[in-house]
């Protein structure tokens, strides 16, 4: 069940949590797996809200009814949802919102799915319900009508207000099921204050980076630091470079295990710049993990680090005063790039409406409130991460959020996205291992390509592995 495509933001956070749980030696994964399979039968969607529909009440929410909302109280907190409740009650003062928050979504919500579920569930965290199972079992409601409904503040539909990728990331088998509220952007981070002081311009290509690197080194700072323990960290950067250099189709071919997909034009050069970065000794010495490397970067030991927009929240307690966290896009190779402007980003933290929810109309209406301008602005302000609606970070005075917001404003429609590591566990492992080997200088770009191709061929031939296809 875990093999269905999901958005990268969601997955990365899940795998992070999974690893955190593993590090804490919570050795009861089987119990969770088993309980996930406990019964939930396909249900028919029958009820309407019972109220009259209007532009301000597209789903016909009934006055005097109540809606039960369950929020995942993780790294992003639950305060933002309480603000959404205020927004919602602004339009529907007579509808009662019963909001609760928990970290045990599956434990608490899954048993109720077949009988009397909550109306709106934020399915997130380590204890989340498997989304493809929910879809396959018909346990959650398609929300295409939410997309088609008018936006909360008017001016077009809800779909119009969403950032690119949000719709795709919530779509399964052609239907929109999951409203992902958080939007994660990946890229290269630097300290704006330091760069201003030294008069350095953040590079946009590797050539510019290699030109700047000696100046950074001269100040006793390592130009670059990476997580050398979790292979999926450097892998984001490698895949982003490959995408920019070789274009979207090359990555789609890789995901689809096409013959010689790793040998396509533009892939080898994209890895050779990383090989050069390692060989020129531009990395901070040591094999640090994610938080250690992030702290080293905050301590001014390294100029650049690549990671997603959760960085600010994750390191909030140890950011030195005067440090100006800024996000810049992943670097490309330059003129030869096929997709130089594409940004690595995706939506995560999904809200779902169970099929058997008693008050689906109000749940959908609540989603409209979550995706409202007022709601998402509050979200960005409180969590310091972007919401999946356009311009949520417009009015927030925070350099990390503002630069991410800026990046998304200039992003083309295509977002950098890789699926093979969700599709195939073997390739996931191999690509993580090889990414770290490349970053450790024990592997050349050519060897990386050869071994990835070898691994991909092996998976393609392995009849015990169920094949998946990526179309877009």
């Amino acid at each position, binding site marked *: *069940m*875990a*093999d269905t495509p999901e958005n990268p933001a969601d997955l990365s956070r899940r795998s992070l949590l999974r690893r955190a749980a*593993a*590090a*804490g*030696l919570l050795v009861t*994964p089987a119990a969770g*797996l088993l309980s996930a*399979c406990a019964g939930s039968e396909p249900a028919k969607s029958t009820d309407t809200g019972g109220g009259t529909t209007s532009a301000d009440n597209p789903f016909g929410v009934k006055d005097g009814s109540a809606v039960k909302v369950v929020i995942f109280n993780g790294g992003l907190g639950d305060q933002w949802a309480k603000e959404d409740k205020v927004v919602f009650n602004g339009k529907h003062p007579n509808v009662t919102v019963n909001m609760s928050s928990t970290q045990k979504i599956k434990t608490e919500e899954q048993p109720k799915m077949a009988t009397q579920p909550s109306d709106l569930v934020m399915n997130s965290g380590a204890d989340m319900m498997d989304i493809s199972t929910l879809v396959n079992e018909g346990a959650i409601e398609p929300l295409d009508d939410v997309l088609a409904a008018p936006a909360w503040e008017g001016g077009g539909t809800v779909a119009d207000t969403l950032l690119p990728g949000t719709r795709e990331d919530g779509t399964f088998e052609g239907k929109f099921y999951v409203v992902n509220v958080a939007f994660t952007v990946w890229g290269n981070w630097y300290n704006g204050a330091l760069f201003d002081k030294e008069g350095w311009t953040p590079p946009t290509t590797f050539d510019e980076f290699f030109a700047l690197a000696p100046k950074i080194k001269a100040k006793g700072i390592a130009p670059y630091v990476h997580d*050398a*323990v*979790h*292979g999926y960290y450097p892998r984001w950067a490698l895949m982003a470079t490959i995408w920019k250099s070789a274009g979207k189709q090359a990555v789609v071919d890789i995901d689809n295990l096409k013959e010689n997909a790793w040998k396509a034009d533009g892939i080898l050069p994209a890895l050779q710049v990383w090989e050069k970065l390692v060989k020129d*000794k531009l990395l*901070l*010495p*040591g*094999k*640090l993990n994610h938080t*250690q490397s992030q702290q*080293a970067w905050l301590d001014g030991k390294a100029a650049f680090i690549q990671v997603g927009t959760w960085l600010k929240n994750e390191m909030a307690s140890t950011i030195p005063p005067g440090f100006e966290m800024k996000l810049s896009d992943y670097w490309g190779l330059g003129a030869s790039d096929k997709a130089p402007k594409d940004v690595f980003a995706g939506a995560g933290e999904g809200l779902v409406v169970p099929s058997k929810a008693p008050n689906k109309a109000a749940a959908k209406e609540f989603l409209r409130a979550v995706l409202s301008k007022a709601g998402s602005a509050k979200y960005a302000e409180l969590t310091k991460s972007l919401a999946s609606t356009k311009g949520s970070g417009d009015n927030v005075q925070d350099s990390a959020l503002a630069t991410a917001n800026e990046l998304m404003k200039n992003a083309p429609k295509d977002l950098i996205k890789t699926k093979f590591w969700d599709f195939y*566990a*073997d390739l*996931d*492992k191999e690509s*993580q*291992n*090889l990414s*770290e*080997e490349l970053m*450790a200088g*024990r592997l050349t770009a050519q060897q990386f390509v050869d071994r990835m191709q070898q691994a991909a061929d092996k998976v393609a031939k392995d009849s*015990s*592995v169920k094949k998946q296809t990526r179309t877009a």
Partner: protein
Amino acid sequence: MRHGVARFVTGFLALPVALYLFYVVWPFAQAAGYSLTDWGGYSDRQEFVGLDNYVRLFSDELIRKAFWHNVFFLITVPLFTIGLALFLAFLLNVGGREDRAGIRGVFGSGLYKVVFFFPQVLSLVVIAVMWQQIYRTDEQGLINGLLIKIGLVDADNPIAFTADPEPFLGVPAVLWWLLLIAVWSGAGFYMVLFSAAMQSIPKDIYEAALLDGASRFHTFFRITLPLLRDTISVAWVYLGFIALDMYALVFVMTPSQGGPDHASEIFASVLNFTAFQKGQFGYACAMGVSLAIFTILLAAAQLRITRRERIEY
């Protein structure tokens, strides 16, 4: 009357035995059953594939690699742990000077006993977190920091510890670093075990030997070791089990749980990956069953080889 006692005993035993059968023996049997299927673990669909999974084990390169890593631990963990534990136990019990009160351990042996036993009372998570700091790979690490300060290690090229796959004596460095932790955390317990066994050896045997002019060296090898045979044999079997597991250390301490690039892959890590990430429970069960059979055979062989007539004292 007799009948009543039997009923009484059965009544008390029935529940625990039932629980044991249901929660321990039955899952074992189930695992063996699943190992003959292609069950994926996420659905109720499974097909009987006979011994295919076991045949596949023999051509699986990763499993072979993991197997040899386990063999490395199987040899080194008992060897070093028992060696160190014996040495410490000997010093603490009979290593000191002799006086009118007879033979005794080195000065302060009571304190040492507590100190050496200490790792045993720490939970594995605490041990792992502690060693992560000791093994930290930049100048903030305990070992690297020290060595960099005194100039033995280049700050631009610190020791990578568990992120180092380069072979040392033909075995990836990461395995040696893990071995160090395993021996450190295990030696204390076996020291106490051996101490207890040594204390049950009558002191007059030692005194007689000393009167006959035996050296420390001779008393250890001619008296202590033979009389501890049973205890050591049991310790060896236990440590063999630990060496075949090693899962927690590999999982917490190594990059990508078995890395870098499979350099610290062991049976259990491959099994975990196959079951929970690849979703091939049938194949993973076959690995587990094979490991169980291997372990049982090993323990049986071990106990048989070391079996001898018991010396009564």
